[in-house]
């Protein structure tokens, strides 16, 4: 039970971090890939509160994973974190209001299964 709780924390904080960062970047909008545009983009990005919230959440997720790995079984924890892909797609749909087409859902599920299998051994 404690294990499920901790794995959920790892997945949810990590995903929340990605969602927050994505939310911040969406507010900036598409950038052309010239050095000066990239520089201005970064200057703007690092002024955004949501970016820092995202980084903090990602760091929390990362350190919770490390803490979890210190007592739980790697072969269970790491494959389980593949559920992040599903959590991310749900968050993107409901919080970021992205349009997740059925084909994309299918892709997300396959990737989630694949990552779980690959990290199983």
């Amino acid at each position, binding site marked *: 039970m404690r294990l499920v709780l901790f794995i959920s924390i790892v997945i949810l904080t990590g995903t929340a971090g990605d969602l927050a960062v994505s939310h911040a970047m969406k507010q900036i909008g598409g950038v052309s890939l010239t050095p000066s545009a990239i520089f201005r983009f970064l200057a703007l990005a690092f002024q955004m509160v949501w970016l820092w919230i995202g980084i903090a959440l990602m760091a929390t997720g990362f350190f919770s994973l490390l803490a979890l790995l210190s007592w739980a079984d790697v072969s269970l924890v790491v494959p389980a974190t593949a559920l992040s892909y599903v959590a991310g797609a749900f968050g993107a749909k409901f919080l970021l209001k992205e349009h997740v087409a059925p084909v994309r859902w299918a892709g997300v599920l396959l*990737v989630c299964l694949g990552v779980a299998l*690959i990290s199983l051994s």
Partner: protein
Amino acid sequence: MSLKRLRTKTYLLLALMVLFGSLGNVLLSRGMKETGEILDFSPRALAGAFGKVFMNGSIWLGIWSLLVFFVSYLLLLSWADLSYVQPASAIGYALVAVLGYFMLGEFVSPTRWTGVLLICAGVVLVGRTDPSPSGRGRRASQQAGAPGEGHRGAELETLTLPSPRGRG
């Protein structure tokens, strides 16, 4: 921007993400192995270990690689959907397994090969969808004469940030 150019831009940044993400992890891992296992957790020994870690070339290269990874991720998310970028970047897992097999002669179990195949199939499916259905990426390139788009991207091209250091 045409959908084709948008895709090219998206693939380029995905490739950078995958390349520098894996490279960064490998370099950090190599650097930490070079500095040796930390067995003594007294404050003094830890301080010494920290010193050694930050004197290590691989560690710094690893940190720079991960910075490139993160900047590519941020740039990509400025026009592409998170629900596109997140699964698409998983191709890195498959790539690492395949490269490990062909270049390092590592053993890859049938379970892992199945995982590689599923990831590839998933990424192909995700890749068939438009990275930016809302059209953010396409608008950005036409922003010059497009006021009132409601996106800060439009400002970005004309934005002049005050330079605190007064260059030159």
